[in-house]
């Protein structure tokens, strides 16, 4: 039985009660409880099932390292899987469920896996699911997908609020234990701006539980006094419930603050992501106790000795009436002494060390506790709960000397400094043989821009294990951090803390050291992923010598706890199996975050309408007021079409096309990129940028141009306008403006920096309206006295004119194939011009058309669209655009690449039109099949559809596509399988389907 003691529990408010439910069962705790302590107080030791064998698992730890006590927390949209009970503060109304079992926690069918454990060793998945091959898709994969993953995905939508917070400081101290407090104080006394973060709700860390004195005062008093001093300092920021999640390049630090997880319903954000730039980072992250590897060390009731002590002191909870302590170091004696003092029974302390412990061992003996040196646990008795232990000699193979009844086991395999944050950004570790632990190597810290280290480890995180050593180390770290950020350290010496004289630890990686196979197969290393000593040994035998390979083969340390308990024990077993020292094996890579952080915190406010900025044209408001159906184009929102009344999209698009083809339509083309290129060398520069010759373009004329990258692939297109001798205006695609401007600057600044050219992206400075259709000129002349006749302004020319009194640049360019004018006016006059055109155009039935009508009309004309006909692997020659590639130019960007053998190969897929035999619309992206099959058993292909629409003009489907030697195969019929299993037949035709001779646009 685990239970609440009558007294004790320094964190509890025993005067109040808090109600919560676990698997629907009503339970009670006190304010100050964690979910884990409250579960234990309610005798709920069994809290989950393991991942692979579905073994019953209980609470092992009391902090962030907990591997077993993962619950699904909350309900509905606020449900969250895999929440650690040990770091979840209890609140009234909390509801949670245990995970990875069916039908219930107590009766779990999956536990049959345990009976076959012999046949489910490390690498089982890789060995088992290979043959026969077809089984993978139909049998194995569906099965594995069902059983993979812990916990359930919450329902979509997160009703809570999250935010990012940017912060700058000289020194960021991670960890609010005694080391963190002292390091922060030392840095702050030197004048540094300090941020101190503590992941739990409490300051002081483990020290109050472990006891000791500072400057002759109880450590608890020192903690309170130091905290008060820090709170009084204006240049110190303190944050609890805020975890140092990750350390990144050059002093970038992520903090994860759980602002209101413990107080649901408050109006504060739920989580806050701190994006911190710190001059120096002090990791005072403490140490984590290691389990011992003995058979049955995963039976509920086997816990870390420090956790047993924490629950007793902090929460007044006993894990059991009779607790056997098993250890290889002196610290676990504190647990025995604490429990005994509380009146609980310690049937025995099993000390694996032949020589036994030091002063603490004497103290325990003095209290009448039985201490057995050189002994260990051969086996834990019990299934869902510890009922006893079988004792053996640590030096032997596990022959049982005696059985002792007990209901809890407190184990300690020594302490491992929390080196994660030190290691995230490249800090190296050294193996401390005497203390049997990895600690930060001060000679190899993570380095900043200046090449100097920017992380200092302090206290237990640095391998200092006694209170006195911790304070001295932290004081030095705080002073050094302040000094590194330009603050002369103060003269105050480090406070004097208790120095313990403990007997040395004896590394114990397996208990007993010669454990037979049957015992090793029950000795758990990774509780969450069910990795045992025997699995790691098997991996070593099968040749997985690298610790990174062994990790992935066995899944050791790959669970949500990322091996906080298991890693050191696992790599020690691996080292032993490989016959090499531990430092040679090394550790796996420590990656951020330290413990999982919520996706919502990472997203912060950037979701919904704030996910990214929306760019709007000057006419956007009119579109909204006139029922535009918008679609995103890059960051712009453009009208897809303007449905009227009950009209659907398709009808609206057809109506807009008919109106434009028959009379006149308006398009808001303001999103088109507009880049001014100016200077004596502008023509020469554009000759390099475009495949065509631009330097010969006359002022007053326009020319369609293609832009390729150095790989030869088409990246953008648009009309280039020569404004005057030195000035060009380059139109780009809507999505390409910024990238193309960057591309120009790249070449100007880094390659041809002596050329006299300036560029300016003026995309948003102009509104651009296309007036297209046979009545376009009539409409414009109604609003203008300037001569816009074919003679005055021929096709591909431009002129300045006043339209409705607004100064405009009028281009005779056409993307629809109709008589078309594109009017560029200052952005602020765009709406006025648009409205004037709408009014004046009434007699022609003028109406706006959207992007879809524009697409259909350009496809009817066989005009390509960047991103439809191109995908980064298409060269202009593939699209039959050889006419736009200058033969006269010695060089342009992409020319050399287009001469490479594969680019000049006649067997490339090339652009053609595709006409379905039955008039239907080909699916966009459909592939044309070719005879035979490829190596993967898939049909061979010979082409694909790049654009496909219903053409109201022709009354049938039209499409363009890239087809193997397409232009040489006019009239051939290709077969396109459709998703519903049918086949569509289409004939290869000319891509220009409408007005091939261009008579309509050139009038």
């Amino acid at each position: 039985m685990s239970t609440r003691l009558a007294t004790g529990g320094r964190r509890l408010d025993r005067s109040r009660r808090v109600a919560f439910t676990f698997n629907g069962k009503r339970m009670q705790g006190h304010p100050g409880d964690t979910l884990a302590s409250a579960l234990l107080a309610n005798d709920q030791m069994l809290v989950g099932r393991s991942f692979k064998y579905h073994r019953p698992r209980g609470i092992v730890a009391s902090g962030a390292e907990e591997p077993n006590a993962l619950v699904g927390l909350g309900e509905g949209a606020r449900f969250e899987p895999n929440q650690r009970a040990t770091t979840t503060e209890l609140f009234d109304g909390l509801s949670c469920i245990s995970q990875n079992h069916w039908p219930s926690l107590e009766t779990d069918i999956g536990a049959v896996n345990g009976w076959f454990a012999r046949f489910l060793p490390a690498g089982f998945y890789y060995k088992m699911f290979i043959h026969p091959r077809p089984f993978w898709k139909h049998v194995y994969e569906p099965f594995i997908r069902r059983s993979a993953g812990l916990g359930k995905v919450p329902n979509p939508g997160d009703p809570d609020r999250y935010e990012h917070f940017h912060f700058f400081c000289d020194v960021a101290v991670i960890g609010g234990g005694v080391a963190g407090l002292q390091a922060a104080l030392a840095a702050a006394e030197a004048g540094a701006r300090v941020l101190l973060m503590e992941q739990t709700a409490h300051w002081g860390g483990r020290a109050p539980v472990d006891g000791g004195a500072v400057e002759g005062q109880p450590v608890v008093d020192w903690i309170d006094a130091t905290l008060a001093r820090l709170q009084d300092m204006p240049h110190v920021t303190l944050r609890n419930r805020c975890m140092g999640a990750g350390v990144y390049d050059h002093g970038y630090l992520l903090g994860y603050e759980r602002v209101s997880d413990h107080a649901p319903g408050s109006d504060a954000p739920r989580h806050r992501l701190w994006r911190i730039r710190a001059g120096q980072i002090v990791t005072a992250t403490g140490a984590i106790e290691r389990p011992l590897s003995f058979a049955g060390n995963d039976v509920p009731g086997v816990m870390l000795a420090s956790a047993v002590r924490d629950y007793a002191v902090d929460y007044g909870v006993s894990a059991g009436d009779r607790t056997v302590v098993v250890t290889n170091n002196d610290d676990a004696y504190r647990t025995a002494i604490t429990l005994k003092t509380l009146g609980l029974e310690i049937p025995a302390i099993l000390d694996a060390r032949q020589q036994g412990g030091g002063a603490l061992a004497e103290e325990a003996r003095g209290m009448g506790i039985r201490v057995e040196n050189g002994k260990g646990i051969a086996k834990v008795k019990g299934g869902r709960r510890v009922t006893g232990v079988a004792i053996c000699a640590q030096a032997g193979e596990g022959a049982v000397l005696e059985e002792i009844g007990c209901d809890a086991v407190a184990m300690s395999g020594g302490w491992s400094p929390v080196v994660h944050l030190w290691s995230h950004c490249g800090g190296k570790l050294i193996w401390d043989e005497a203390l049997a632990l990895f600690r930060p190597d001060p000679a190899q810290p993570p380095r900043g821009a200046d090449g100097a280290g920017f992380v200092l480890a302090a206290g237990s995180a640095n391998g200092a294990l006694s209170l006195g050593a911790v304070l001295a180390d932290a004081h030095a770290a705080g002073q050094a951090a302040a000094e590194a950020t330009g603050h002369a350290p103060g003269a105050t010496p480090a406070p004097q803390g208790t120095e313990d004289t403990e007997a040395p630890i004896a590394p114990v990686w397996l208990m007993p050291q010669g454990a037979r196979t049957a015992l090793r197969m029950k000795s758990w290393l990774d509780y969450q992923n069910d990795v045992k000593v025997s699995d790691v040994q098997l991996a070593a035998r099968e040749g997985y010598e690298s610790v990174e390979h062994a990790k992935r083969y066995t899944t050791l340390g790959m669970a949500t706890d990322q091996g906080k308990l298991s890693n050191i024990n696992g790599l020690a077993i691996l080292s032993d199996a490989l016959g090499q020292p531990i430092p040679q094996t090394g550790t796996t890579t420590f990656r951020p975050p330290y413990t999982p952080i919520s996706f919502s915190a990472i997203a912060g406010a950037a979701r919904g309408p704030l996910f990214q900025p929306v760019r709007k044209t000057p006419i956007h408001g009119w579109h909204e007021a006139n029922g535009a159906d918008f679609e995103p184009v890059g960051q712009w929102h453009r009208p897809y079409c303007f449905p009227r009344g009950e009209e659907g999209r398709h009808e609206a698009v057809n109506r807009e096309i008919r109106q434009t083809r028959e009379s006149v339509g308006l398009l808001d083309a303001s999103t088109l990129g507009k880049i001014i290129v100016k200077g004596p060398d502008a023509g020469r520069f554009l000759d390099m940028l475009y495949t065509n010759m631009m330097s010969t373009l006359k002022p007053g004329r326009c020319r369609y141009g293609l832009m390729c990258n150095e790989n030869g692939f088409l990246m953008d297109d648009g009309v280039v306008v020569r404004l005057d001798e030195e000035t060009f205006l380059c139109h780009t695609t809507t999505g390409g403006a910024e990238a193309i401007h960057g591309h120009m600057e790249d070449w100007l600044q880094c390659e041809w920096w002596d050329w006299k050219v300036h560029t300016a992206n003026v995309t948003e400075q102009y509104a651009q309206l296309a007036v297209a259709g046979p009545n376009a000129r009539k409409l414009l002349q109604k609003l203008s006295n300037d001569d816009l006749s074919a003679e005055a302004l021929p096709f591909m020319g431009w002129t300045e004119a006043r339209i409705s009194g607004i100064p405009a640049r009028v281009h005779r360019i056409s993307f629809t194939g109709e008589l078309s004018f594109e009017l560029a006016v200052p952005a602020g006059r765009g709406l006025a011009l648009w409205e004037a055109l709408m009014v004046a155009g009434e007699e022609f039935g003028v109406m706006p058309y959207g992007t879809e009508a524009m697409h259909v009309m350009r496809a009817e004309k066989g005009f390509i669209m960047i991103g439809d006909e191109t995908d980064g692997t298409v060269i202009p020659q593939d699209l039959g655009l050889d006419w736009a590639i200058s033969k006269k130019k010695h060089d342009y960007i992409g020319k050399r690449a287009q001469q490479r053998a594969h680019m000049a190969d006649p067997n490339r897929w090339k652009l053609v039109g595709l006409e379905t035999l039955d008039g239907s619309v080909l699916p966009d992206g459909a592939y044309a099949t070719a005879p035979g099959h490829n190596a993967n058993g898939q049909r061979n292909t010979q082409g694909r559809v790049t654009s496909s629409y219903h053409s109201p003009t022709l009354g049938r489907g039209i499409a363009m596509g890239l087809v193997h030697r397409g232009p040489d195969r006019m009239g051939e019929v290709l077969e396109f399988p459709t998703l519903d299993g049918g086949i569509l037949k289409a004939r290869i035709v000319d891509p220009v389907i409408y007005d091939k001779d261009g008579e309509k646009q050139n009038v």
Partner: protein
Amino acid sequence: MLILHCPCCGVTGEETEFHQGGEAHLKREGPGSSDEAFHTYLFAKENPRGVHFERWRHAYGCGKWFIAARDTVTLEVYGTYPAQTHEPPPEIREAITAKRPGWRWRAFA
């Protein structure tokens, strides 16, 4: 997230302000170059463990390209300088030599 100093506008900013542009000091190969030379120019990029020269653009600042000499292992930045040069300036080379005696990168040392 590196911290870089823009030598053009003098601002020291963090990586989100800048845009990385690959290996620096490339010599462009155009028409007339051999297949091998062109292939090397386009695809055979340096990927050193240690001293490296990279192009960066102060994309959310002054918009200028510059070159950063930095260490891919320690993340130390030895210096930054404007892109309008065919080789690292002497003071940058000296700064690297002070920290990494005997360094080599392509033809530079």
